[in-house]
């Protein structure tokens, strides 16, 4: 009984922290955010999640970090596909968008930094369109690995969003759509 309980409890912890949206996280479209993780009063699940992953969550005064491992149709992000990020970006002093391997390492990109910051993109009004693919495209192009899964991190620094994270709606974050895939 003791052994079954011990194994079951540890399995539950592992299973819950490995979920695509663990407790403490909020999902907006493709984007997952842990609004309380970097606060001075974090919930135990968020604290455990970041302790296991090994990075430092953003404090509410710094901004908000959104992570995406799935597209708007809930399919896993894969390098053999092309994607586009479209829509209005929420107000912030700066934002950054970077591509990571599933284990959290930055992908190596011959094109320089594997990502974008708000000063580097071409804005069409308030709307940004960013194309994601392994091979080059015109306009705002973000290189993704040619194969395998990847994770996107979209961070907003100095943003009024922090205060309203609990009532943020999908429409205020850019959409992450799959355009096509190589079979």
């Amino acid at each position, binding site marked *: *009984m*003791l052994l*079954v*309980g*011990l*194994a*079951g*409890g*540890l399995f*539950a*912890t592992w299973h*819950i922290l490995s979920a695509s949206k663990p407790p403490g996280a909020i999902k907006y479209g493709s984007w997952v955010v842990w609004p309380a993780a*970097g*606060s*001075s009063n*974090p919930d*135990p*699940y968020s*604290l*455990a999640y*970041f*302790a*296991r*992953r*090994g*990075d*430092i*969550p953003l*404090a*509410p*005064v*710094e901004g908000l*970090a959104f*992570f995406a491992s799935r597209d708007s149709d809930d399919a896993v992000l894969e390098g053999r596909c092309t994607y586009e990020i479209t829509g209005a970006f929420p107000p912030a*002093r*700066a934002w*950054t968008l*970077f591509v*990571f391997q599933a*284990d*959290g*390492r*930055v992908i190596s990109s011959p094109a*320089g*930094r*594997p*990502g974008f*910051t*708000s*000063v*580097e993109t071409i804005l069409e009004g308030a709307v940004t369109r960013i194309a994601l693919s392994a091979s080059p495209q015109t306009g705002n192009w973000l290189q993704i690995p040619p194969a395998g899964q990847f*994770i996107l*991190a979209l*961070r907003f*620094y*100095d943003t009024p969003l922090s205060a309203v994270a609990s009532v943020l709606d999908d429409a205020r974050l850019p959409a992450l759509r799959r355009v096509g895939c190589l079979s």
Partner: protein
Amino acid sequence: MKRGFFNAIPFILGAVIIAGLVHLLSILLLPRVAASNAFARLSVNASLNTLENLQSPDGTKVMLPFADPAMLTAICHYDVTQEPVRLKITTGDDFMSIVFLDPEGKVIYSLTDKAATRRLIEIVIGSPAQIRQITIQDSEDEAVQELRLRLANPRGMAIIRALAPRSSDVPQVSALLDRSDCQQE
């Protein structure tokens, strides 16, 4: 068969209760025991009470998983058991932030470059008794320019992050971190 099932009920209930307790305990203990948490990774090679620019050529080059590549980082692994520690952070045009972590990785205090006066943020960290001692010595005529932080845990880490919006901004932003400082009083 039926009888066997009823006999198993106490066993199942017991296992479920133990599993629940183990799950709760492991969630609460994980930040304390995780060898791979941010604090443990960053403090491996960090000397105490000095500011270390992780970008500098002789830096430890620790890259935390999912860390923002556009953010340059400096750390100050502090211990105020003996003396309080003073941080001086030089800010620039772009976003900068300072967070204080306890050894479990919990953010105990955070601020951004908005808190700077004349491009400088000065923070004195110490035990409640040390900070009280400093406050007693304040001159009544002069306004206090520095922030003072009372720490419940004498050990921790200050993480200073500075945004380099373009790759070409990296040397300039890294120089800001080099000009910053963390020292025992």
